[in-house]
């Protein structure tokens, strides 16, 4: 396995974690289909590729590909922190200067600030996680102080640009008591790029604080895109996440939420519409460890062409988490011959006074609805498009920010030729 990591360079910060991860890297198994967590997503092709981490070159707008706007949502009034191949781009970024908010690249945090970092131990259990911990170049660090409400969302834009590039973004967010923030993580790749984007996002939300997180993947080229998001919620905190896969040849989104305090509120939704030979995998875990939490999950997907979709949603209710209310729904449409979906919604419940339900369906467009639309004069194509829009709208409409919502919809409609 050392061959795969031969050309990976580890920067000099965060040495302690890196060394630990490097040791683990050799002992952790490389994911194979025999591993339950990777049963439906093969990485064998990636492992045999010869990748290298970015060695530097032109920075700023000069080095940035023309077809991609460094500001992915121009209509959105937002702060911005931009990375290209894992390297911070100060001239393209616009960091907040807001009282009580610290926002900077992870590589330049102070000794004091580094003490606030925490780690979810993903690198101890998964080879992919160890890879990130060992070789992460940079990322985004956000600390929102007590009772501070950040006025605008922050867009974290991450671009993979070039052939056989390996990059490892690592982001940390910490919201203190009563604080509020919204973060948009936007992952792109330029035309003909290839390689791997292995990212980690960790957030801790203090009591009564709130975090909104929107994740958008829109990658050209052939990138193996791994994302592991780990959220820890304290008492009465709120977390709302949205995950949209617009384009990406191989995408695996892992979202893991731990409710570590009473009365947390969690909403996480997602949509995936893979085409061609694309592969989209969504693994979510909701872990209720304290009483009175509520969680609601909605993931919807349409598989076109020869694409494959994977959904694995786990809900844990630990012995003490009484009066938990957990709801999970996964709805899929296999649109074309050759496309497939592998869904695995799971409930593991160890407390009795709970209300937990999951539903999972695989089906087609409602023929009656289709007929109704056609009887109103829409042609087959337009009627189908409308139904697709409506199908995704349930997920899209809960995105709180209108400008962002419109942009996501625009990208979907451009790709799928909606009206």
């Amino acid at each position, binding site marked *: 396995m050392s061959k795969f990591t031969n050309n990976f360079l580890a920067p000099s910060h965060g040495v302690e974690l890196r060394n630990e991860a490097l040791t683990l890297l050799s002992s952790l198994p490389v994911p194979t289909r025999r591993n339950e967590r990777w049963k439906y997503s093969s990485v064998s092709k990636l492992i045999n590729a010869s990748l290298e981490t970015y060695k530097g070159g032109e920075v700023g707008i000069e080095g940035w590909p023309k077809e991609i706007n460094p500001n992915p949502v121009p209509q959105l009034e937002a702060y911005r922190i931009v990375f290209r191949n894992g390297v911070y781009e100060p001239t393209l970024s616009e960091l907040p200067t807001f009282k009580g908010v610290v926002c900077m690249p992870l590589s330049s945090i102070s000794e004091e600030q580094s003490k606030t970092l925490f780690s979810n131990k993903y690198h101890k259990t998964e080879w992919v996680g160890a890879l990130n911990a060992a070789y992460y170049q940079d990322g985004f660090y956000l600390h929102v102080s007590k009772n501070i409400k950040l006025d605008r969302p922050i867009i974290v834009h991450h671009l993979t640009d070039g052939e056989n590039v390996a990059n490892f973004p690592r982001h940390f967010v910490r919201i203190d008591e009563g604080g509020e923030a919204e973060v948009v993580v936007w992952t792109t790749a330029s035309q003909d790029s290839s390689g791997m984007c292995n990212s980690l996002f960790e957030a801790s939300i203090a009591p009564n604080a709130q975090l909104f997180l929107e994740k958008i993947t829109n990658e050209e080229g052939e990138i193996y895109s791994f994302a592991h998001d780990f959220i820890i919620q304290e008492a009465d905190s709120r977390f709302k996440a949205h995950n949209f896969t617009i384009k990406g040849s191989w995408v695996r989104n892992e979202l893991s939420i731990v409710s570590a305090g009473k009365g947390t509120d969690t909403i996480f939704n997602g949509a995936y519409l893979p085409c061609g030979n694309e592969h989209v995998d969504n693994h979510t875990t909701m872990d209720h460890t304290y009483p009175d939490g509520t969680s609601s999950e909605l993931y919807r997907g349409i598989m076109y062409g020869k694409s494959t979709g994977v959904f694995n949603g786990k809900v844990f209710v630990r012995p003490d988490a009484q009066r938990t209310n957990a709801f999970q729904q996964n709805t899929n449409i296999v649109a074309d011959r050759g496309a497939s979906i592998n*869904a695995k*919604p799971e409930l593991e*419940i*160890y407390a*009795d006074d709970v209300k937990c339900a999951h539903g999972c369906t695989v*089906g087609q467009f409602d023929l009656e609805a289709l007929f109704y639309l056609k009887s109103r004069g829409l042609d087959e194509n337009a009627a189908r498009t409308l139904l697709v829009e409506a199908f995704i709208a349930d997920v899209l409409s809960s995105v709180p920010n209108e400008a962002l919502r419109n942009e996501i919809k625009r990208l979907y409609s451009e790709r799928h030729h909606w009206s």
Partner: protein
Amino acid sequence: MSQTEEEKLIGEVTAKSYEFGFTTDIDSDTIPPGLNEGVIRTISAKKNEPEWLLKWRLEAFRLWSEMEEPEWAHVNYPKLDLQSISYYSAPKQKKEIASLDEVDPELLKTMEKLGISIEEQKRLSGVAVDFVMDSVSVATSFKEKLGELGVIFCSLGEAIQEHPELVRKYMGTVVPQRDNYYAALNSAVFTDGSFCYIPKGVRCPMELSTYFRINQAGTGQFERTLLIADEGSYVSYLEGCTAPQRDENQLHAAVVEIVSMDEAEVKYSTVQNWYPGDANGLGGVFNFVTKRGLCHRAAKISWTQVETGSAVTWKYPSCILKGDDSIGEFFSVAVTNNMQQADTGTKMIHIGKRTRSTIISKGISSGHSQNSYRGLVQIHPGAENARNFSVCDSLLMTDTCGAHTFPYIEVKNPTAQIEHEATTSKIGEDQIFYCQQRGIEEEEAIGLIVKGYAKDVLNKLPMEFAVEAQKLLTISLEGSVG
């Protein structure tokens, strides 16, 4: 309910010892514990088996030796030492039985205690009983009547002697030797079981029934059932089991294979009440069973099970819907109490066009038990217009038990329609309150609610079984509300 009352009730239930815990003293011809090629040759020789079957067993043993014990199930148990089990035990007095008078009186007593006296069965219910005591069948009834219709219903050992062509043609076609660890073990060492063949177009006039018992200390049971329903036939098959109380773990690794030919229908019902171990999880049967049916064109296989026993259950009655328009059904009630662990569910493999399947699973967990549903619905690319509907509900009775759902849904055809839903909730306090308000004792109210909850499945059972199953549900759950 107040804390003390609750504790009292729980105390009562946990104090309840296993009702059917008794052993029968019958001389047995048992070979020494251990597993090797020699043991398999001995079993085969003792049973006077043809050469091809010995080869088949040895091949299974070879495959098994290369396998590892599966660990993916949501269960925890001390690993078994398979070398400490004796792989063959047969009642010594083996002779042809024409009437009940010739049956060992001890055996008749056992059956009486179980409430399945052959006389009674013969007279009242018209059920033919193939009674399996340990591993060899000793009593078979109604054989003549079935014979007139051409129905073959006998022990597998007998079938191997008398209908080798049928056994050879079908055995291992649905559950091959290499299928899984325990199926491979069973293929190597199975001692006996039931064989059933329903000829073309015959509607079996009575329900066929086999009662299994584990009776010899330290004897693993390796039953093998082969059921073939030829074109256009129908059969309803009942399988029920109770096991005597014992402190050491007993392994039960059975294999059931069903072949449902074109337009045939098989209804397979099980009431499983192996010894679950005591309140501390000591003892109890390990039930690692492979059950699978193959449906040809427009055939139907319907599995109904009521699982209340065993310390550890690992069981997934499955349907391979190979033929067009075939139907698979799975109805299950799984009750776990004390330290019991159950990982059970089904697999519906849709290969043919317009294949349909229904899954209704009701889990009830109590005490410190863990109850999991694990199911697979797989739609192959050629399975046009396949349809599946699954409901998995779990009911939690105490705050120390667990209820889990692990459904796998794999769809490779755009015309498939799959619906799966699962809910987990506590037994409704308002429902109990309503019953109590109407003068129904709490205990009784719980029984009522649980029976209502499991009704969808219990209704699918043949009448005789439904009665037994309801009794079992009540026994397993009395007073265990939290």
